[in-house]
């Protein structure tokens, strides 16, 4: 094994034409050249090649050496183009492409990773929620209502409304029945928000609260509810969200955490999917808590209004029949707690003996169920 090559000594930009030979003990490369002051000796086990090199016919050698550089490598480079020598190196030197890590690399990774995770976790789970709570409290009521109207409008468009209010149901008799139900629930107490409950003509079985006291009930929920008590229970739950300012806090927190997550997952293909999944997961942990609190609020409100909290359980039972419950790991991604848990809690909250008067009389209940009938 012997041949010509070029050496860059790592000290000057000169290009040395050199001869490469094996040492006598066959354990090192000896590099000699007219322009070199003394022969350079590189032990064979320390030889390393540069990876992902564009020219497969040559090998650029360096050697493993503890330097202050980014990798523990000698700054000198030996460019080998002699085909025999290239083949010999590939054949006899299995460690050419070894990655050499400095001592303590694992500790450095663990330290930085821990630091970054702690910073992100502290932001997402402590600082942003606290800030969102404070800011939600500071937001003037009229601004919050205006924001809520924007959110509601967006939701309506999402449900297929061509223009604002196009899907609103307001048959007068149904409207009056709904107002009577809300009045009975709130019992004249001041919620801190002007409640505005509306019904939208959509077959989905759902209801939601937007910021600033806006509650929207979808027609599908009225269709599927077995009794007026069930609708009252759902309303009480949504009023709970309103009083706790959940929608506003949610919007503020999401604004902070989405930007932050985009930063963590970066710009790679599929990164957006990761951001959405992570946001869902974080959001779920908060909203499950918010849902449980809204349920609790609903029990108290229902009992105060002389209605059984078990009506909420009836609603969840219908949900479970329609869609099934979330089980296993998927439960962490769901925005609501498990239905089975909520049904048990609602039943447990119901007093044994209640003098029960339905939330609406038969005529009113019929009127509410047909609130969307003569629309448009």
């Amino acid at each position, binding site marked *: 094994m012997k041949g010509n090559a070029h050496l860059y*000594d790592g000290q*000057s*930009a*000169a*290009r040395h034409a050199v001869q490469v030979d094996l040492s006598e003990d066959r354990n090192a490369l000896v590099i000699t050249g007219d322009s070199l002051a003394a022969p350079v000796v590189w032990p064979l086990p320390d030889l390393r090649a*540069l*990876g*992902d*090199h*564009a*020219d497969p016919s040559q090998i*650029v050698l360096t050697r493993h050496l503890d*330097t*202050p550089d*980014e*990798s523990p490598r000698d*700054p*000198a*480079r030996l*460019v080998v183009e002699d085909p025999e020598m290239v083949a010999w190196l590939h054949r006899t030197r299995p460690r050419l492409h070894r990655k050499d890590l400095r001592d303590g*690399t694992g500790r*450095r*990774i663990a330290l*930085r*990773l821990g*630091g*970054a995770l702690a*910073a*992100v976790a502290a*932001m*997402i789970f402590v*600082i*942003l929620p606290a*800030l969102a709570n404070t*800011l939600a409290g*500071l937001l003037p009521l009229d*601004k*919050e209502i*205006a*924001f809520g109207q*924007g*959110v509601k409008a967006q939701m309506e468009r999402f449900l297929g409304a061509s223009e604002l209010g196009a899907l609103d149901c307001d048959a007068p008799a149904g409207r009056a029945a709904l107002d009577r139900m809300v009045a009975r629930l709130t019992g004249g107490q001041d919620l801190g928000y002007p409640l505005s409950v509306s019904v939208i003509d959509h077959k989905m079985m759902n209801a939601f609260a937007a910021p600033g006291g806006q509650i929207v009930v979808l027609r599908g929920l009225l269709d599927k509810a077995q009794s007026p008590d069930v609708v009252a229970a759902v309303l009480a739950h949504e009023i709970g969200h309103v009083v706790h300012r959940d929608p506003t806090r949610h919007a*503020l*927190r999401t*604004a*902070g*955490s*989405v*930007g*932050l997550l985009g*930063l963590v*997952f*970066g*710009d*790679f*293909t*599929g*990164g957006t999917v*990761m951001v959405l999944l992570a946001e869902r997961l974080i959001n779920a942990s908060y909203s499950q808590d918010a849902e449980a609190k809204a349920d609790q609020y609903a029990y108290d409100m229902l009992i105060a209004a002389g209605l059984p909290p078990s009506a909420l359980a009836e609603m969840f039972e219908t949900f479970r029949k329609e*869609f099934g419950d979330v089980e296993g790991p998927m439960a962490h991604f769901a925005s609501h707690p498990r239905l089975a848990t909520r049904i048990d809690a609602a039943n447990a909250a119901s007093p044994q003996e209640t003098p029960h008067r339905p939330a609406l009389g038969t005529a009113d209940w019929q009127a509410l169920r047909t609130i969307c009938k003569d629309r448009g």
Partner: protein
Amino acid sequence: MSDGNYAHGDYTGHGKALFWLALCTGLLTLLTLGIYRFWAKTRIRRYIWSSARLDGSRFEYTGTGLEKFLGFLLAVVFLAVYLGLIQIVLFYFGLRIFAAPQTPEQALAQTAGFSVSALALMPFIFFAIYRARRYKLARSRWRGIRFGMDKAAWGYAFRALGYWLLTLISLGLLTPLMTFRLEKYMTDRSWFGDAQFEQQGRWTALYAKMKHIFIGLVLMALGGTAAAFIEEPASLLTMLAVLAIPTGLVWFVIGVISYRVQCFAYLTRHKMLMGKIAFHAQPRTAKVIGTYIVGSLILSLLLSVAVAVFGGIAALMLSGLDLTAPDSTFEPGMIPPIVISVAGYLLTLIAAQAGALALITQPILRHYVQSLTVINIEALAEIHQRLADPGADAEGFADALDIGGAI
């Protein structure tokens, strides 16, 4: 190649090799949920750097994936706190000031209010741009000698903000001033071994490179004026307006590319190393645009074939299922086609990125390298090594802020 005291740049990379490298590293990035991207970038740079050759010696990229990963983690700590706070506070003030948009004007104002958060990031973005260039230079070697750049990222960030503001106020008329001064700031702080670079030339010389931008603007203005005076639909004025506006627009876009290519050429021709070594660069705008168009055409052709194949398979598998049935719930039979569709979509994206690298980025780079000449190459032998730059964040800020471009 060297002829006498001149050395011409030379680029030997192959499209196929780069494509497979980018495809494999892209897949690994996907499988590792994005973590491998630091190693992917490193490996692609190693290939590209080692493809460029000057006077018979190849360049070398010595950056490592590990240091990029660690630098990114460092940047995350700073930016997480800063970004999270800025975004939530701005959103709050956006709500407070603008509330719900009632009119399109208000919606626009609100969007503008929210994009202030991007403005709050501007200093960091410029900071990251300088740091990224410093890192790239610090990890580039030629003949075993390190390139390098002084630590001056904040100085760059403040100047860049100032020049951007000037450019904005002057409606773009001072763009050459910004281009020149910012490049000079970076070049004058760049080194090869112990030899310093210097940017010479005058900023006013860059106005000539804006020629095609001005022609495009004038054409569009002419078309607009003609349109304003149209009285009868089939007149000469109508024809003028219909022709001049789109022509002007295309001309303007070409003008912007031309400005960038020719500014690079001018600025390179007026760089000096050690006061002795000069450079000559003659990239052709037509070649750059042509490469871009041809590359995009081939790529979109290949992609549409791939999409048709994947889409066809998924459609075939879905066709047996009745998805329109009322109250259709989730069926197990839907899983394979959905998985195939998502996987196919992500694979196509990765292949598209790898293809763009091999068919567009690399050929353009090849053109730039091959049209570069170094004058007085022999003086390079006097240059000696410089100290290693630890490069604290190793592009971490640039990565976190999604700056960086193709390579």
